[in-house]
C-alpha cells in the first residue's frame, strides 16, 4: 500500500515536471489543452509498454494458438455485449440493441459461455456502442483529450463512459470477492487487447513524424467516426483548419 503511494507520488512528479518541460513552444490545439501533461503521461505509458505490456503481449501472441485467442477475445467481448446492447438502446438504436441481446443469448448458451461467436456466424454482427458514444449522442461535449497510461488515448467524455461501461460489466462484480481471480481476468484482458494492437505498432512507428500527435489525431478521428456509426461525414476536426485547395498547374505560372 505504502509502496503504491510512493510510486504514485513519483509518477505525479514526473508528469508535472514533464508538463513544464515540454510546454515551452507548443501552440495548443483546441482539443488538447493539457498537451504538456498528456505528453508526459504518454512517455510514462511508452516506458511501461516497452518493458512490460508489449513483451507480454508478444509472448501471448506467439504462445497462444489463434483459435484460443479468438476464444479469449470472444469471452471478454461477450461480457462487454451487455453494455454495448444497453448503449444501443440508450442511443435509440432499437434494432442494434435487440441484435445485441440476441447475440448475448446465443453466444452465452450455444457459444459456451461466450467462447464461440456463433452469433456472427449466423449473421448477427456485433455493434460497437459504448457509453462514451452515448454521451456524445446525448450532446455532451468531448472534453479535453487525455492520455491515460495503460488505458491509452481518451477524452474526458470517453473516460467517464469507460468507467460506466466497466461498472455495468458483470465480469468484475461476479468475482469481486476473489481478488486473485479478478486481477488475472483484468490482466489477461489487457494483454489480449494489447496483442490485437501489435500489427499497428510498426505502421504507427513508420508513418508518424510525431507519434503522440499521430495517435491523438487517429483517436479523435476514430471516435468521431464511431459516433457517426461509420458514416462518412465532416470529422470533428481537431484544428478546424480551412483548406486551401490548389489547382496546381505548373504550366500556368506566369513568366515575369
Amino acid at each position, binding site marked *: 500500500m505504502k509502496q503504491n503511494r510512493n510510486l504514485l507520488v513519483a509518477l505525479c512528479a514526473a508528469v508535472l515536471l514533464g508538463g513544464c518541460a515540454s510546454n515551452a513552444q507548443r501552440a495548443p490545439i483546441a482539443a488538447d489543452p493539457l498537451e504538456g501533461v498528456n505528453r508526459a503521461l504518454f512517455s510514462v505509458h511508452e516506458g511501461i509498454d516497452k518493458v512490460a505490456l508489449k513483451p507480454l503481449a508478444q509472448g501471448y501472441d506467439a504462445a497462444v494458438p489463434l483459435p484460443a485467442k479468438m476464444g479469449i477475445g470472444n469471452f471478454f467481448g461477450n461480457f462487454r455485449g451487455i453494455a454495448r446492447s444497453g448503449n444501443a438502446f440508450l442511443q435509440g438504436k432499437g434494432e442494434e440493441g435487440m441484435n445485441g441481446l440476441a447475440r448475448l443469448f446465443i453466444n452465452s448458451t450455444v457459444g459456451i459461455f461466450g467462447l464461440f461467436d456463433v452469433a456472427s456466424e449466423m449473421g448477427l454482427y456485433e455493434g460497437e456502442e459504448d457509453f462514451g458514444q452515448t454521451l456524445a449522442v446525448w450532446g455532451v461535449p468531448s472534453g479535453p483529450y487525455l492520455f491515460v497510461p495503460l488505458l491509452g488515448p481518451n477524452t474526458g467524455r470517453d473516460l467517464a463512459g469507460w468507467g460506466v461501461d466497466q461498472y455495468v460489466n458483470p465480469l468484475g462484480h461476479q468475482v469481486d470477492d476473489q481478488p486473485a481471480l479478478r486481477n488475472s481476468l483484468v490482466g489477461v484482458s489487457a494483454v489480449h487487447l494489447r496483442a490485437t494492437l501489435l500489427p499497428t505498432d510498426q505502421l504507427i512507428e513508420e508513418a508518424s513524424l*510525431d507519434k503522440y500527435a499521430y495517435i491523438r489525431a487517429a483517436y479523435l478521428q476514430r471516435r468521431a467516426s464511431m459516433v457517426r456509426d461509420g458514416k462518412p461525414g465532416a470529422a470533428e476536426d*481537431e484544428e478546424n483548419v480551412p483548406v486551401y485547395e*490548389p489547382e496546381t498547374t505548373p504550366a500556368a505560372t506566369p513568366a515575369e
Partner: protein
Amino acid sequence: MNYLPKLLLAAATILAVPAALAQEMILTAPDVLVQSVTEDVLAAIRQDKDIKSGNTQKTINLVQSKVLPHFNFSRMTALAVGRDWSKASAAQKEQLAGQFRDLLVRTYANAVSAYRDQKVRYKPFKMNPDDTDALVRTEIQQPGGRPIQLDYSLEKTDKGWKVYDVVVAGVSLVTNYRSTFSQEIRDGGIDGLIKTLTEKNRALEKGKAA
C-alpha cells in the same frame, strides 16, 4: 436547299458520338477504378513470393507502378498541410508532395504486404453523372476479426478519377498529419517540414524506423 443544315447536323452528330464515347472510356467510373486497381494489386501480391516474404522494395515498386498513377498527391499534400499550403512556393509544394508521397507509399506498401487471406467487399456505389467528387466505400474482411472500413475519396480530373484521401476505419490517413505538419511549419517554416519529411524517409530507407 434544306439539305445542307441537316447534312451538317448529321456530320456533327457522327463526329461527336465517338468523341463522347472516348471521353467516357478514359474516365473509368470511380468504383470500377478502385475495384480494378485493388484486385490487380492483390493478385500481384498473391503471386509474388518475394513480397510475401517481406521484400519491402518490391512491394514499393508494385505500389508505385499500379497505385500511384491513380493518386493526386498535390491535392493530398494540400489537405494534410491545410492553411499553410498557400504560403508554400511552387517548388516547395513540389518537394512537399514528393516527400509526403514517399512516406505514404512506404506505409501503404507495408500495410499491403501484411495482406494474407483478407477479402475485400465493395459496397454499393451511387453517383450522379455530373458529380466531380466521389466516395468509394470498401470493407476488408478478415478471418476471426471485425471487418475494417476502407474508403477512398476521388475527384474527377481531365486525366480521369484520382484518389485524394484514404480513410481507414474513419481515420483519414491524410488529415491525420495536419496537426504535426502545422507544428513543424510553426517551428521551422515550410522548409523545416520538408527537411523533417526528407530525414524521415531517409531513415526509413535505411531500415530503422525513426
